[in-house]
Structures are given as structure tokens and as C-alpha cells.
């Protein structure tokens, strides 16, 4: 694949730093709220905050890609990673639930 690196104008650095920080914060908020809801440590409706955080995360990642002037391939990788990030905790939780249900009370633990 032909591939070029573009220089980033110095006036774009600050927006990149700020948006990167938001990426981290929204990413943590999604994982955090999702886990808290599944552990029943907060009310169920907080899951809405988890998905809103994920939506904001995708918007930030897309905008970050634009600021970095990434080529279409990397933009696809970034959005693909975000879809993975959305689905993954669900898969983990689903697997854990299934495994627990399968083995619960089935043997004495060590």
C-alpha cells in the first residue's frame, strides 16, 4: 500500500493534545460505567452513560484521526478498534456469565 506521512501543523498540536485527553477519559468512562453496572454497584440506568461515553469516544477518535491527517486505512483501523471496544466488554461479560453458570456449585473449589 502506498503510504505517506503528513506533517502536522504546529497550531494543531494543542487540539490534538486536548482531544487525546478526552479519548482517554471517555474510554475509561465507558469501561468504568459498564463494569459498575454489571457488578450491580450502581443503578441499571447508568448503562446509558456508558454508551454515551462510547459515542463521545468515537466522535473524538474520528476527529483525532482528521487532525492527525491519517490516511483512510488507519481511519478504518481506528473506527474498527472503537467497534471492538464497544463489543468487547459485552463478550467478556457474556463469557464470564456463561462460565459461572456452567460451573457454579459444580465442584468444591481449592
Amino acid at each position, binding site marked *: *500500500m502506498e*503510504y505517506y*506521512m*503528513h506533517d*502536522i501543523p*504546529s497550531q494543531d*498540536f*494543542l487540539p490534538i*493534545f486536548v482531544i*487525546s485527553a478526552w479519548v*482517554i477519559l471517555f*474510554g*475509561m468512562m465507558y*469501561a468504568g460505567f*459498564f*463494569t459498575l453496572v*454489571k*457488578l*450491580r*454497584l450502581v443503578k441499571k440506568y447508568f448503562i446509558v452513560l456508558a454508551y454515551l461515553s462510547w459515542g463521545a469516544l468515537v466522535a473524538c477518535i474520528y476527529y483525532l484521526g482528521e487532525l*492527525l*491527517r*491519517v490516511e483512510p*486505512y*488507519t481511519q478504518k*483501523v*481506528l473506527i*474498527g*478498534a472503537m467497534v*471492538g*471496544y464497544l463489543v*468487547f*466488554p459485552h463478550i*467478556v*461479560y457474556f*463469557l*464470564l456469565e456463561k*462460565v*459461572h453458570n*456452567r*460451573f*457454579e456449585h*459444580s*465442584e468444591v*473449589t*481449592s
Partner: protein
Amino acid sequence: MQGNNGQLYEGQKLALKYFTVAIVLFGAQLLFGLIAAIQFLYPGFLFNTLDFSIARIVHINALVVWLLYAMIGAVYWLLPDEAGREVVGVKLGNLAFYVLTAAVAVVVLVYLFIQVGPGNEMTTWLITEGREYIEAPRWADIGIVVVVLIFLYNVYATVMSGKKTGILAVLMADLIALAGLYLAGMFYTDNISVDQFWWWWVVHLWVEATWEVYVAAVGGYILIKTLNANRKVVEMWLWIEVAMMFGSGILGLGHHYFWIGTPEYWWEIGALFSALEPVPLVGLFVHVLYDWGKERGKGNTIKNVPAFAWLTVETFGNFLGAGVWGFMHTLPQINLYTHGTQWPAAHGHLAFFGAYVAIMIAAIYLGVQGKAGLKELKMTKAGWWAITLITVGVLLMTVSLTLSAYVQTMVERGMYGGTWEGYFVAQANQWFVQGLGWRLATGLMVIAGYVFLVYDLLTCTKKQPAEVYEASGAAAAA
């Protein structure tokens, strides 16, 4: 946890020796890190006595060596417990321990007092190979290989003649890869690109593949020991984690091949697989918390509170330090500006601490509990101060380094185009210097936490509430 009549297995006694040296080397790592941090701000400090390059060598090599000590120790601790029999070849294991410790002592003395060589073949053999993190001279390399072969023999021979659990199966496969990769950093090449190409096989495929799998296995064991988590659940999940870590970690190696003269297709490979690397860490994070939530409601008490607390720090720290801080500068478009700045330093500090240091301290607490023969171990005040000061200290250190990294990236790379002049202008920038000042302050905080940690490891079994001793006494009588 123990052999017959509450006695420790010989293998577990050997583990305690490894843990002791590990904690001493941890102190050495922090001390030389402190010296290097002071030299960033006051370049004249110990100039021509212990230059920055030497302080840094000892800082990062002590880190790797103490973690390896703790890792070997943790395996010797869980091996007889899991396999249900004494470690085969434990005498040989003891001999290997003393040989390794003597070799490490000699290597450190050479680093401190000889420091540099003439840069010929003799230097590689006797002083240093000059490869970051694995700087041991070749004679020590060969010694390490022999010691590790003995260790592998002990693990395999013990499992083959004992019980075979899922945790041990994962560990057996992983330790072969972990040991084998070390060989990639042992031969000499006079081409820096080729040298870096192989060197990353050791460093990356250790910390982002085989060590992570090791952590998943030992973390599973700690979950079983501290929470009474269901073994089948833990082991089933372990296989999934292993597959994901290897799946993303092996080709994630690409992010080290962006700028060292390797072909450009590594940009795409590195971008894709590096972006996937945080994924299994989210899994580890959710898994540990989920198990805790599941087991909590059953009236189970946590059998070793400090170990579980450090395991929790590990899941958060691994996700943040290795996952988030790694992802921050792993895309080639970003890495073009950030590589070689304080950015990787920020990531490295939190990733090593979060992914490895925390879980090794958890394993050491299991050893402390087992040595005292206590059924339960509660958190003491000193233990609480240790975990708080060290964890908050490293987190703040990472934030400080990240702020310095922002400035350095902006000034040195963005404004000056990565020139030599840009390097010095960025180093003198007041915000950059302030960040490093905060790093020094947080370093002192971590050292204060280390003092509490050592004190707690030595005294926590004597400072437990009365019910702990009563429960342990009743268990021993039964």
C-alpha cells in the same frame, strides 16, 4: 497452600529466597531511579562519579532482574501447591539461586565501578552488551541461560510427575517462550538496525506477550487463593486471555519497527495490532472485578487482603499504563512525533508498575502469609500506606512525565522538526523542567511507600487482629 502438617514445601522455601532478593533489588531500582531523576534537574549531580547513563542502566536492569526473580519465586511458590508434590530438583534449584544471585551482584559491581569498556569484544563479554534492559555481559547471559534451564527442568519435571492443572499448562508453555526469547538478545551484530530488530524480540515479546500471559496465569492463581474463585471459571477465562494476548501482542511488535530501517509495511501492521493490544487488558480488568463481585456475596472473606488489593491495582494499572498510555502513542502518525521523548518514559513507568510490579508484590504477600501459616491475612496500616503511596506516587509520576512529554513533543518535534537545537530548547523549557521536578517529588513518594512496604512485609503477620490467629489456630488443630 502448604505441604503436610502446615509445613512449607522446599520449593516454597526457595520461593521465599527469590522474593527476598527481589525486594532488595526493587529498593536498588528505586534508589538509582531517584539518582537519575535528580540528574535530570541538576546535571552536575555525581557527574564523573556515577553518570546518568550508569544510573539509568542500574535503574532499568534492576527492574527487569527483580521482576524475573519475583516471577521465578512466584512459580516456585505455586508449583508444589498446584502440582500437589514437592518440586523435583529443588536442591539444584537452590544451587541455581545462589549462582544467579552471585552473578547479579558481580554484574552490578561492574556497572558501578568499571562502568564502560573500550567498546571491543571484551566489553561485550565482561562489562556490558549495551542493550537497554538486558545489558548483562555475555558471561552473565550464559549463566542466566543455565539457571533458567534448571528452572524449566524443575517446572516440567514437577508437573509431569504431579497434578496437571490449567494454570500450570499455560505456565509451562509460556515459560518456554519466555526463556527462548532471551536468546534473541545474546548474539552480537554490528548493524544497529539488525541489533534493534532482534533486541525488540526480547523486550517487546517479553513485556507485551509472554510476561502478560504469565501475569494472567499467576493472577488466576491469586484469585483462587484470595477469593476462593471457581478454578474452572478462572482457567477457562485464562485460555481466552492467552489467545487474545498472543493474538495482539506478537504482531504488536510492529510498533517498534516504525523508524529503525525495517520495511514500511510495519506501519500498517503496527497500527492495527497495537490498537488491539489494550483489548485483552480490558478483559483482564473486567474479569477480576467480575469475580470479586461474584464471590463477594457468598459470605466469603478475602483470604489475603493485601494480595487482593495489589491484584486490583494490577488490573487497573495494566489497563491504564500498558493499554491507555500505550495506545496514546502507538499509531505511526503520532509516534513520528513522540518516539524517544518522555512519552515512552511515562508509558513505561505506569505499564511496568501496573502490569508487573503490583502483581509480583501480591505474590510476595501470598508467600508472607504462607510462611506464617495464617489462614487469613488482613491489611495493616503500614500495608495501606505502602499501597497508597506507591500507587498514587507512580500515577502522579506518569502524569508529570506525560506533561513534560507534551511540551517536548510540541517544541522539539513540532516546532523545531526534531533537530538537535530543538532537543536543547525543549529540555530548557520551564514546563518541561517543572514536569521533571514533579517526577522527582513523586519518586520520593514512591520510595516512602517502599519503606512502608518492606516494614509491612517483615511485620504484617505479627500485627493481625486476634480473630485471624484464632481462625488459624482452629484450622491447625483441626
